[in-house]
């Protein structure tokens, strides 16, 4: 992997030398004209995946490639629309009782499995049973353990009852539905992984049918003409597995692939900014659902002092960081939620770059004197610590270096240590053998972050690595996850964000932008808070622009 990264850098250097940089206006703006074209069927879309898929039943895989494919073959009862609201997918409608404990789904009557059998309430019950079966090797059991009872009232009605109000209840039903008639025996025997549906013949209800999976080479899907919703218009999808980012970039330049979201900031901003590329591809940019942070081991008495953490927050210029590391392609994080989403609270304490304020806070915390090396000293010990991050992520390495430089100005010495991912996690993070880290969190679509911030979640396999404990935060998290009404939850999460911003248990740095490109001949691609994939079934290529006729 190290070699590959080096490869990327070399290509960057080459390409940077080869083409004089041109300053352009982005993609040609014919948006209005594009909207009036009527969708037609046909053509093939070729997309690159960095890694091979792990299986064809997404309920038991956890890598993003498998989920990309799985979500096209299967569907859930609900899904997220462009503004990230939950809307019906296999469910026509649903009702929730006042106490949030009863939920009734009305299923679409025209939904069919790819083998022609109708999709019924019984399949929903089966999917629940499969998920909670102790022999099912899934990472997504928790949501379904909250269910007290489930019953199929009739062929198209499902009633679910929860033991106590559970905020993620509705979202959990976006889990892909599995067919009872094909998988029941595998589930009861605990052999779901070995089912042929996981390897060569998946049967789902989604917009695309499975055609072929050549290990390490490609996955091919074809349009499901019996799909219960609009589209899909693109007749065939080919997902090519290309493990090298550098190769994906060159394939894009050679027009060997139509779409990719693996471009680096440098490739996206500079190396694809020439007329031929702009003509061939539409570029998109929106904040991804992940943020990068500078975290502390709060068991360390130096970091347990809030003033020290706040001082660090003042010392680091987030804007500079985003410029330096992401070429500006990212957004400042003020807390653990993405700006622009319903739960985001913009009215929290902010930490503009202010070294004076930082020095003052450190002095209040007792770090006043400096030794001969210019390092702050307290009780005879200089303020130095080791900042760790994982190998294979150049951005994090650069962040560590920038933090090192910023803190040095305050008189704090930082040693950087970069470790292989698995050993970093297992030997240092899980065992809490770290002083400070640069890492990232992917955030789910539901605002519940109990697992990350709650003081009870500090065991070796738990995720509160930094050992954060704040009773008010605990309370907000508990309340937030036990209500199912957005406006009520928003109150709790607003308060949560205020406390986190004040406490700075970690310094929230930025949300990097997702940077996908899609071939210009594909119409109907729209950027939204939910990215570009939400209306994938409505993407199409006008007949005159269709490139592949086979399939």
């Amino acid at each position, binding site marked *: 992997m190290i070699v590959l990264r080096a490869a990327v850098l*070399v290509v960057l250097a080459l390409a940077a030398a080869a083409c004089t940089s041109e300053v352009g206006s982005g993609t040609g703006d014919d948006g209005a004209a594009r909207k009036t074209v009527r969708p037609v069927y046909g053509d093939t879309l070729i997309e690159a995946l960095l890694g091979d898929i792990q299986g064809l039943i997404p309920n038991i895989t956890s890598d993003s490639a498998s989920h990309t494919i799985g979500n096209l073959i299967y569907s859930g009862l609900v899904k997220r629309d462009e503004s990230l609201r939950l809307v019906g997918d296999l469910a026509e409608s649903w009702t929730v009782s006042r106490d949030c404990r009863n939920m009734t789904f009305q299923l679409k009557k025209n939904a069919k499995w790819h083998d022609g059998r109708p999709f019924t309430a019984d399949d929903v019950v089966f999917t629940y049973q499969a998920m909670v079966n102790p022999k099912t090797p899934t990472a997504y059991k928790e949501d379904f353990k909250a269910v007290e009872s489930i019953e199929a009232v009739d062929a198209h009605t499902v009633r679910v009852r929860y033991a106590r109000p559970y905020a993620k209840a509705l979202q959990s039903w976006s889990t892909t539905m599995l067919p009872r008639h094909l998988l029941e025996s595998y589930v009861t025997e605990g052999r779901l992984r070995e089912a042929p549906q996981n390897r060569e013949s998946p049967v789902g209800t989604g917009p695309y049918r499975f055609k072929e999976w050549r290990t390490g080479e490609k996955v091919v899907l074809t349009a499901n003409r019996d799909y219960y919703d609009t589209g899909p218009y693109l007749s065939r999808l080919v997902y090519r597995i290309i493990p090298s980012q550098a190769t994906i970039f060159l394939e894009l330049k050679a027009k060997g692939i139509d779409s990719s979201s693996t471009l680096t900031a440098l490739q996206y901003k500079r190396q694809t900014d020439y007329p031929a590329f702009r003509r061939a591809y539409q570029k998109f940019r929106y904040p991804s659902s992940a943020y990068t942070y500078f975290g502390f081991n709060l068991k360390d008495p130096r970091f347990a002092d809030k003033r020290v953490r706040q001082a660090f927050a003042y010392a680091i210029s987030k804007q500079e960081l985003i410029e330096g590391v992401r070429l500006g392609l990212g957004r400042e994080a003020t807390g653990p939620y993405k700006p622009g989403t319903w739960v985001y609270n913009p009215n929290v304490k902010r930490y503009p770059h202010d070294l004076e304020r930082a020095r003052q806070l450190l002095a209040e915390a007792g770090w006043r004197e400096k030794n001969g090396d210019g390092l702050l000293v307290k009780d005879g010990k200089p303020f130095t610590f080791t900042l760790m991050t994982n190998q294979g992520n150049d951005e994090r390495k650069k962040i560590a270096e920038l933090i090192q430089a910023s803190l040095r100005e305050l008189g704090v010495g930082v040693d950087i240590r970069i470790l292989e991912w698995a050993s970093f996690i297992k030997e240092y993070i899980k065992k809490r053998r770290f002083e400070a880290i640069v890492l990232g969190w992917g955030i789910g679509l539901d605002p519940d972050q109990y697992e990350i911030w709650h003081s009870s979640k500090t065991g070796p396999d738990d995720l509160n690595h930094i050992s954060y404990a704040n009773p008010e935060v605990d309370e907000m998290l508990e309340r937030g996850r036990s209500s199912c009404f957005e406006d009520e939850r928003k109150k709790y999460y607003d308060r949560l964000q205020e406390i986190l911003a004040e406490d700075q248990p970690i310094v929230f740095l930025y949300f990097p932008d997702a940077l996908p490109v899609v071939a210009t001949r594909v119409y109907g691609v729209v950027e939204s808070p939910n990215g570009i994939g939400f209306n994938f079934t409505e993407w199409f290529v006008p007949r005159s622009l269709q490139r*592949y006729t086979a399939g």
Partner: protein
Amino acid sequence: MFWYVLRRVLIAVPLLLGITFISFLVIHLAPGDPVDFHTGDLSPDSSAQAKQMLRKQYGLDKPLPVQYWNWLIRLARLDFGRSFAPDGRPVLQKIGERLPITLMLNVVEMAIILLFAVPIGVLSATRQYSRFDKATTVFVFMGFATPDFWFALLLILLFAVHLGWLPASGLRDINWEYLSFWKRHWDFLSHLILPIGVATFGGLAGFSRYMRQSMLEVVRQDYIQSARAKGLAERVVIGKHALRNAMLPIVTILGLSLPGLIGGSVIVESIFAIPGMGQLMVQSVFQRDYPVIMGNLVIVSTLTLVANLLADVAYGLVDPRIRLGGRRRQ
């Protein structure tokens, strides 16, 4: 001879056991856990219990010696187990589907390398310090010193992006199924030109330098002198008398590189997106997919032991000194 072979085979068994034991130990000592990769490391969705359950399912909760013993028992029945990856497929099947392409690439590469390296070595030996010698020396060492990934990317940039003559990566065109018979073959071949080119360029140095060295030694021998004195044409002296003797060390090296034929080059495979053994091995190491790693190791080490045995036996057959030495000891 029979007893010699039998003894060697008997020694190979504990050797193989030792190799597997040490490998097993080392792999399990490496930090990280297959279960983490399963549940998406640090994913807030997956609970600690789910991980415990998976560990139990894979038998990872048992002490290491027990795990090794169980693995060995299964191996004795030629059961390599199932992969820990979510696809859960049999190890042999996973290796089996990747072996052909790697084997093919390596055999073709080896053939092309020999095809070029032998004449280069012979010519530069017979014309030692000539312009040809110096030029080829520079050329093969350039190949040796050029990083594979860099050269590969340059070739893609030139032949796929700028000239558009060859495909950039992969094994087959997207519409391969719909091509005519001959076009299919050409398409497949055109995908292999660049990867084979890269690997060949890098591998030329070794064989051609061995060949040159060995040839230089042979042409100084008395029997070459006498062949020349007899008035044989230089072509015959070199091509017949010298080359045959000079080839011996090359054949030995060739024999030893046989097990390497099933190991793919990770770099070339990743850049050209070829689903071969190298990628499988690296992925399994990153995912701590113990059964696949061990399966691969057993196959490679068995092949190495067999190749060594064959080489030793062949020496015994060819060289009377080794044979006689063996008899005298008895």
